C-alpha cells in the first residue's frame, strides 16, 4: 500500500505540487502572522520594560500603547509628579510614529531629555556621541546592526535626512531617539510630550505610588510598566480575533485544497478504486489509502510551509522594521492545522471513493 501511495504522489506531480503549495500557504499564514504578532508585541514589551521606569503617565488619547504621534501631555506635569510621595525621578518622552523604511510596518522615534532618561533607564552611548543639533539622532545597537547604520549614516525621520550621531545601549523604548525639544519643534507641540516615565523610590511600592498619582492627578492614564504586556494586546484592537481568523482561514484553505485535489484524483482514479474493490479491499482500506496519501502530501506541505515561513521571516526582519518571533506552540499549531486540514479535506473524497459501485468503477473510461 505504501508504494501505491508513494507512486501516486510521484506520478501526479502537478496535483502534488498544487496540494503541497496550498497546505504550505496555510502553514505560512499561521506561522508568519502569529510570528509577526508575537514578535512585534514582545519586542515592544521588552523595550518598554527596558526604560527602567516602574510607572508611565499619560493623558487619554496620547497612550504609550497606541502607535500614534499625538503629543498632548504638558511636560510640566513632570514637576507635579516629582512632588508626589514615593516618586524618585521623572522623564518626559515624546513619541513620533513613522512608516517603516521599506513601507511595511511602522517605526517609532522618541524625543527624550537625555539626562533624566539615561538616569532612569541606564541608557549610555556605546559609540559616537549624543545628538548635538536638531538634525542628529541616536539609535540602538539593534537598529544599527539591522539597518547597517553607523556613525555619520543618514536616516529618514519626518521624511528628511538626519545623521546618526551615536549608538546607545541597552534597548529601550523607540529605537531612534532625538532631543525632545527638537521633536516638539518639528511637531509644533511646544512643552508637550506623549508620556512621562516615573521611577519610584521603592519598586515594591509601585502600586501604592500608582494609586497616589491617580488620586492627585485624576483623569489621566497611570500604567505600571509590568502591565504593559497585557496592555499592548488590548491596545491593538481585535488582535486575538485576527489571530483566530488566520487560524480558521488557514484550516479552510488546507481543507479546500486537499478536498479539491483528492476529489479530482478520485475521479481520475475511479477505475483504480474498482480494481482495489475487485481485489477485496474493504471500504476502510480504500479510505485509509486516500487519507494516507493526503497526510503525506500535507506533511510535505507543512515542511515546505515552515521552511518558507522561516525564510520569509528572515527576509522580513532584514528588509523591514518588523520583528518576528516563532514559538514552538504556534509552529505545532500550524503543523496540526496543515495535517488535520488535509486529513479532513480528504475525508469526503475518500468516503465517496469507498462507496463507489465496483462494477461501474471497473467500467469507467
Amino acid at each position, binding site marked *: *500500500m505504501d*508504494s*501505491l501511495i508513494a*507512486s*501516486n504522489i*510521484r*506520478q501526479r506531480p502537478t496535483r502534488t505540487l498544487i496540494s503541497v503549495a496550498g497546505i504550505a500557504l496555510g502553514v505560512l499564514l499561521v506561522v508568519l502572522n502569529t510570528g509577526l504578532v508575537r514578535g512585534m508585541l514582545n519586542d515592544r514589551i521588552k523595550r518598554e520594560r527596558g526604560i527602567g521606569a516602574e510607572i508611565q503617565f499619560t493623558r487619554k488619547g496620547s497612550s504609550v500603547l497606541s502607535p500614534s504621534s499625538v503629543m498632548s501631555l504638558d511636560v510640566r506635569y513632570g514637576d507635579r509628579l516629582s512632588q508626589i510621595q514615593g516618586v524618585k525621578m521623572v522623564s518626559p518622552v515624546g513619541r513620533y510614529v513613522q512608516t517603516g523604511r521599506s513601507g511595511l510596518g511602522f517605526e517609532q522615534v522618541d524625543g527624550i531629555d537625555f539626562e533624566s532618561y539615561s538616569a532612569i533607564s541606564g541608557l549610555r552611548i556605546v559609540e559616537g556621541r549624543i545628538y548635538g543639533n536638531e538634525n542628529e539622532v541616536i539609535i540602538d545597537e539593534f537598529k544599527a546592526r539591522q539597518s547597517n547604520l553607523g556613525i555619520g549614516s543618514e536616516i529618514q525621520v519626518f521624511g528628511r535626512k538626519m545623521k546618526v550621531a551615536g549608538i546607545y545601549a541597552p534597548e529601550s523604548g523607540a529605537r531612534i531617539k532625538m532631543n525632545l525639544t527638537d521633536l516638539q519643534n518639528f511637531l509644533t507641540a511646544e512643552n508637550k510630550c506623549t508620556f512621562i516615565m516615573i521611577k519610584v523610590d521603592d519598586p515594591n511600592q509601585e502600586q501604592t505610588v500608582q494609586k497616589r498619582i491617580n488620586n492627585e492627578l485624576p483623569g489621566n492614564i497611570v500604567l505600571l510598566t509590568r502591565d504593559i504586556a497585557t496592555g499592548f494586546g488590548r491596545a491593538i484592537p481585535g488582535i486575538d480575533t485576527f489571530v483566530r481568523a488566520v487560524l480558521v482561514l488557514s484550516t479552510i484553505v488546507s481543507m479546500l485544497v486537499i478536498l479539491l485535489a483528492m476529489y479530482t484524483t478520485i475521479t481520475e482514479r475511479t*477505475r*483504480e478504486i*474498482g*480494481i*482495489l*474493490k*475487485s*481485489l*477485496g*479491499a*474493504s*471500504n476502510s*482500506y480504500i479510505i485509509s489509502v486516500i487519507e494516507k496519501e493526503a497526510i503525506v502530501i500535507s506533511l510535505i506541505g507543512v515542511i515546505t510551509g515552515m521552511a518558507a515561513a522561516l525564510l520569509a521571516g528572515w527576509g522580513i526582519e532584514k528588509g523591514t522594521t518588523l520583528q518576528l518571533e516563532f514559538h514552538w506552540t504556534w509552529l505545532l499549531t500550524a503543523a496540526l492545522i496543515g495535517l488535520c486540514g488535509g486529513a479532513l479535506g480528504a475525508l469526503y473524497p475518500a468516503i465517496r471513493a469507498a462507496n463507489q459501485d*465496483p*462494477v461501474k468503477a*471497473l467500467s469507467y473510461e
Partner: protein
Amino acid sequence: MSAILKIENLTMTYRVGKVDVHALRGVNLSVGRGEFVSIMGPSGCGKSTLLHVLGGLLKPTSGRVLIDGEDLTNMSDADRTDVRRRKIGFVFQRFNLFPTLSAEGNLRLAEHIHGQGKKIIDDETRREVLKLLRLENKMRHKPLEMSGGEQQRVALARAVINRPAIILADEPTGNLDSENSEVVLNMLKQLNRELNQTIVMITHNPEAAAVASRMIEMRDGIIVKDNG
C-alpha cells in the same frame, strides 16, 4: 469432486429507467474444485452479470451463490468484499493493473490486501507462480512498458498469487492478438493443471472457450448448454 461454486436459481434484474432488464433468469450451476469452466455466449446474454455476481461485485435479485461453502446471497457488501479478498481472484479483459506500480508493486498490493498487511505468501509460492507465468524478468516493469500479453500475465499472477478458491476471468483474451491470446490461454490451462486452480472464464470466442475442460453456453440469461 467437491463443489467449490454452487449456484441455485440465480436471477438478476436491473432497472434501466422504467424498464426491468432480466439479466439472469434462473441460473443453476455447480463447479468442482480444480475445474476449468468456460462460459460462452453473445453480448447481452448475462455472462458478465453472472461473473460479477459470482465475484460478489453485484448482489443478485434472488437465488443462492455459494463459494467454497460461503453463501454470498444474503451477505452485506462488506462481507462479500471479505469473501472476495479471501477466496476470489479476478482477471479482466483490460488487465486492470495499477499503471503507477511496477509488476512487482501490483503483486505486492494484491498480497497486502489479501493478507491484511501481513505477509502470508511464502517466497516459494511466489517464485513458482512467477516461473509458471514466465515473469521473473518483468517484475520491475510498469504496465505501460509491457506488451498486452505480458500485462495479462501479470494480471494472472496477481489473481493466482494468493491461491484463491476460484479465479474469475472476464474475457481475458479480449484485448489481445491471437499470439498473445494463445499464450494467456495456455497459461490459464497450466495454472489449472499444475496448481489445481479452479477457473471460470467468460468469453464470446469459441476457440478460447474450447481451452477449458468444461464449456457452458448462455443465452438470454439462462444456461442453454453445458458439456460438464
